[in-house]
Structure formats: C-alpha cells, structure tokens
C-alpha cells in the first residue's frame, strides 16, 4: 500500500507541517500531496489548471480542511462527490471548527468522517495517525482510474 496517496488540503503552513510530522511519527510514510486552497485541490483531482495534462494519481484519502482561501472545503467536497471520477474517494474533514452547521453540512455532502483538530499536539498527532492508519490500511477503497 506504499503507493497509496494522501491528499492534504490545508492552507495553514503550521497545520500542514504538524500533520506531516504526526504522520511521520506514526510511521505512515505514504506520499502526501498538499493543496493549499480549494481550487488547487480540485485542479489536482481533475487534472485542470496547473495540473492540466499531467498524469495524476488519485489519492486513497483526502484530508480536507474547511476554511480555505478561494474555494471553501464544503464546496470542494461537493464538487468531488459530483464528479464520477472522484465520487468514491474517502474524504475526512479535519477542521478547527466546532460549529454544528459545519458538521451537519459535511455529512450531508458525503464526508466519510469529521474530525475536530485537537489543540494539544499529542492529541492532534494521535488523531492524524489513527485517521491515516484506518483509511490507508484498514479501510478498503475502490479507486476509479482516469483514462490515461
């Protein structure tokens, strides 16, 4: 499963780095693609924009922040579910938001999990590792490959 890819959609460089650190500490050494806003995330997944014409590996799981520049996380989720090529990719919403509306909207749009990022690093690291292990190793997914 070493070729399984994680797409991390995160605009906060601190959180990005901490997430990567947590994965590393949890010995999850899969490749991680980082998109720093919603548009970039969709460009990667759909092979558009700066990713146009590039051979793209679809991720095994998307870790999606909600509060993002340009295009918000909920809209990214909506577009991902609407596209047959990405509709089945597990999406784990990872956010600082504890707003009830965000949680409900995420599930309605088809999120597979909703994880509130803990403030303490130990708890955060633990959460990231569990999410990684579960979606990369335990869970079985079907990835629809784009036509080359």
């Amino acid at each position, binding site marked *: 499963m070493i070729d399984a890819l994680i797409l991390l959609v995160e605009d906060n460089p*601190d959180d990005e780095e901490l997430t990567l650190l947590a994965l590393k500490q949890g010995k999850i050494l899969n490749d991680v693609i980082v998109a720093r806003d919603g548009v970039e995330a969709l460009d990667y997944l759909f092979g558009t924009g700066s990713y146009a014409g590039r051979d793209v590996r679809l991720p095994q799981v998307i870790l999606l922040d909600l509060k993002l520049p340009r295009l918000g996380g909920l809209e990214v989720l909506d577009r991902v579910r609407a596209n047959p090529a990405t509709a089945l990719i597990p999406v784990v919403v990872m*956010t600082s*938001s504890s707003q009830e509306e965000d949680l409900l909207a995420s599930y309605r749009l088809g999120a597979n999990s909703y994880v509130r990022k803990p403030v303490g*690093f130990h708890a955060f690291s633990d959460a990231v590792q569990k999410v990684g292990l579960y979606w990369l190793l335990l869970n079985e997914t079907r990835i629809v490959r784009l036509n080359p």
Partner: protein
Amino acid sequence: MADTSAPPRTERQDEQTAPERDSAHGPGNGKPRILIVDDSLTVRMDLRQTFDTAEFDIVACETLAAARAEIARQAPSLVILDVLLPDGDGVDLLREIKATMAPAPLVMLLSTEAEVSDRVRGLKTGADDYIGKPYDATYVLARVRELIGVAACLPKPAAPRLVLIDDSATSRRHFQSILESAGYSVVTAENGEEGLRTAFALRPDAIIVDHFLAGGIDGDTVIRRLKQDVTLRNTPCLLFTASAKDGEELRMLDAGADAFLGKEVEVDVLLARLAALIRSGNPALAVDASPSSLLGAKKVLAVDDSITYLAEVSAQLRKEGYDVVQAHSGKEALDLLEVQIVDCILLDVLMPGLSGNETCRIIKKRPSLRGIPLLMLTAAEGHEALIEGIESGADDYIGKSSDFTVLKARLRAQLRRKQSEDELRLIREELLRKDLDAAQARADREIAQARAVLVDELEAKNRELEAFSYAVSHDLRAPLRAIDGFSDALISQYRDLLDDKGKHYLRRIHEGSLRMGQLIEDLLDLSRITRRALSRERVNLSDLALEIASELRAEHPQRQVEFAIAPDLAAVGDRHLLRIALQNLAANAWKFTGKCQCARIEFGVRQQDGERVYFVRDNGVGFDMAYADKLFTPFQRLHGAQEFPGTGIGLATVQRIVIRHGGRVWAEAAVGKGATFSFTLREA
C-alpha cells in the same frame, strides 16, 4: 316611651297609619332599605312621610332590641339611629354594626344636640353622619340620598326623570298626573330649597319650577341657583307661572330659564315644549359632583357661648335647609372639627376661653380646614374689631344685630365663592392632569424609541459576539496547536541538544498552551449555553450523576472517592445542558476533595420552602463564605492554580444553565469543611 319589657316590635304592628310594607317592596326589589331607630313616634312618622316608599324600603323600630332583630332579618343600606333609646345607647349598636357587618351599612346618627361630646363620640365610633335634633326632614332625606348615592344606584328609568317644584299641593298633583301619564318619572318638591336639594340628589333630565313659591325663595331664585351649580347648570329648566305677562317672561329668561309657560297652557303644548327641551338639553358636565356643590345638603358649624343666640341662628338656618352643628366654645369647635366635616363656620368673636379670633387663627393654620369659609359674628360692629377679625383670617365679618337675611345672604355668598374656587381647582387639576398625561405619553414614546435603539444595538453586539466566538473557535486554536506542536517536536527531536533548563522552558510552553486551549473550550461552551435553544424533556438526574461518576473514576483511576447518589431523581429540562451542569459540579467536587483521605461526594434533593432543592455536597477543602458571591463570576477563582487548577468558568456555566431552567444556584461552605452547591429548577 314604649314598654321595654314587651317583645321587639316593628312599625307594622304599632303604626297603622303608615303604609303597609307589601311584598312587592320587600327584599330583592333593589330599593335601598332604610332602618329608622327612634323611640319618638313623631320622628318615625315624620321621616316615613318624608321618605318616598317608591324610592326606599322603610322599616322603623323604637328599641335597640327590635332594631337588632330587623338587622338580623335583612341588612339595611342605611340606619337612621337615635342615641338615647329606652333599652340602651344607640352608639353601642353603631359600634356593633361597624365592627361585625361587612359591608357595614351606613349609619346616620339623629340625636339631640345636647352635648358636643355626643357628636364627637358618635363620629369617632364610625357614624357616617350626625344630624342634630330638631332636624329638617328634607335635609335628612337629602343627606340620605347623598350618602346612598341614590342617583347612582337607582336604575335609570326608561322614562326621563323630572323634578317638579310647586308650593300648591293641588297643582303638584295635577301636573304630576299629566306628566306621569305622558311617560315621565316625576319627583315633587313643595318649596325652592327642597327642590334644589332633590334636583342635586336625583340629577333629573329637566326641572319644572313654579314661578311663585310661598314662604321661601321664589322660582327665578331657584333657577339662578340651578344655573350656578356645576352639576345642574346644563339641566333644562321650565318656569311656570299663573299669569303670563310679557315683562315677566323676559325677566324669567334673564334669570336663566330655558322656557317659560303659563299654567293655563294646553297639555299638548306643555308636553311638546318639555320634549323639545329635554332633546336639546346638554349632557351634564363630566365633572364629579364635588361635595362642595352649592345645592348639596350643607352643614354649618355655629360657635357661640350664648345658647340663646345659637338656638336662634340654628332655627333660622334650618329653615333654609342647612344642618346646624353647635359648639359652645372655641375648644369645642376645634374638637368637633377633628371628626366632623362642615361646609361653613360661624364664629362668635367674644367667647370665654379661646376667643373667636384665636380660634379662627388656629383653624386657618390647619391645611385640612383652611378652605372652609369662616364668618365672624360680633356684637360690637367696631371698625377695629372688623379689621382684627379679617386679619385673623376670617372670610367675612357680620354684626350680630343685623337681620338674619343678611347673614343668610353672606353665608350663601361664601359657599358660592368656595364652590367656584373648587370648580376652578377641579379645572386646573384637570388641565394639569392632561399636561401630565401628555408628558407621560411623550416620555413613553421616547422610552420606546430608546429601547428600540438599544435592542438594535444589543442584537448587533450579539452578532459581533457570535462572530468573535467563531473566530476564537477557529482562528485561535490553530496557532495554539502550532505552539504546542512545535515545542513538542523540539522536545522529542532535539532532546539531546537541550539542557535541563531548555527542557523546562519547553514544558512550560506546553503547559501554557494546554491551559489556554482549555480556556478557549470553556468559553465556547459558556457562550453556546446561552445561545442554544432549550429542549425540555424528562431527565433522570440520578442516571446522569452515575454516568458522570464513572467517567471521573475512569479518568482518575488512582483516586478513591465515595459517591452517594440518591436514586431516581427526575427533573424536566434540557438533558444536554443539565448534564453539563452536573458534570461541572461533580468535577468541582472531585477536584476539591483531591487532598482528602476519604473523599465523599453526595448528590441528592431536599424540600425547602416548598421547593425541590438539588445539591452536590463534598467533604473537600471548602472555601471562605466571604467570597461566596464571586463564585459564579466567570474567571473568578478562589484557589491558586498551583493548588487546584481550573479556568474559573465552570460555575458560571452551571449558573447560566440553572438560570435558563428558571432556577437559582447558591453555595454554602466553610474552610476545611467541604462545600454544598444547591440549585433549583422551575417545576414544569
């Protein structure tokens, strides 16, 4: 005097001349019931004749025993009560009536004016009025009507009500029958004074006055006085005369009559004029009948040390329809005025003891008496005496030697002056009240506007606060995670490069970020509790407490804490919020028993002042009650963070939850002796 050993008798047995009380006039017919208690047959008969049986239900007795029996049979509206009775003191019956009956009937004492002290005693015992004998029957009737408020309590007849004033009995009967057969309700009076009082008491729709009235004021005087009275000036007046002369008519109309007719006029013409008059009659002014109305029954206090003069002036004034209260000295007059309201005071200048001028000065100093017109009477008509009298505050000054007609005219003038003053005062008060109402309305409007602005501001502030909460929730947490995460990374990856001091600093950074994180979480909880909609359901608090206890045990397995949770405590409220409240109270108790060998936490309920009071009690360190009022303020802490860590928000959260459930929360504690937190919830 009646045989007192005989069983109580009422008039039905001993007064055959009086009209029988038939059943149609019995109880329940709505007429005021008047009980006359007097041992004098003359008085009983006189009052019976004066009081119209169509207006009142009259019963008369001669002894207290008979009166008590009548009162027990049916409570009267008003009792006319003599004081000296064969079987006792009338004042005793008065006291009984006022002490035991509710509502107590009105009581009018009618007794010999022998001793001023009798009058004072009667009025102090609660009599509604005191009329001295010899009395004027029409005055008694007028007072009874005023006291009972006949005009108010009698059902307004479908037919317009007329007062007919005529001195000829034949003529009265003649016109009364014509008018009654035309559908009017007619009350008659045989002289001008009585007619005025009747009109004042009944407020008729029109008044018909004979121009020539023997032995008293004449028709145009009656009309002039009617037109001066605030309550009657708009009542149409029709003047009758035996001989219609052109010059007469002009004079009558000048006096204020609304119409003028000869007595020989045809019946149709009379009825047509009357109907037209009533149609055009203005409704009476909406001014309350002030007690100073000129035509009401008037009480005059006459003060003189000469019994002869008192008797003479009283007789003269009673003839005019005044009730006269007598006092023989300035001291007696002042005692009387404590209990007796009068409309006018006649005061002799030369008296032993307090002189007239001294008495006058005292009266005019008292705010409650100052307004009563006061006339000084003197034998000496000297220039200086007059000046002294007027200077002591008297309203007028009259020589005793002068004709009584002068005294009567001056008396009437003073009463009229008082009335117009009262009217002006009423008008001023009315205007002032309107001003006040307008000011009040303006103030209300301004308050409403200010409130609307405040509400808008408050809503804007609330929105800001929510936005702030969101920002706190989202934006503050991320940098905090960075602080914690990178300090952690530093510790784990660069441990070997750091000396002990460096590691210590990093630990301090880590702990600080944890505390800040907890603070943010608690603040968000607190704000959510206030905003969250309350759902109400039946909640088993005992189950919640058990869950919380096992969570606390699981979190801190190293501690030994005994929980005593009363079973099956149910309440109606928001399950989620009640859990947070109990959670905070239990966590508090858990924390503050941390240093006890045998910690014990109790949850139960007690009944206090008819309320269910829930409580969480611990045997921990407690606190000084001097700080009890600060407990529920956010961020307020009574213990050092080293000793017992915490954010100081938990109890504020508990309080908000309890308040949202319509309850109260409070704490009792002593240092070293544990604490009890009690709360109530609105019973649903």
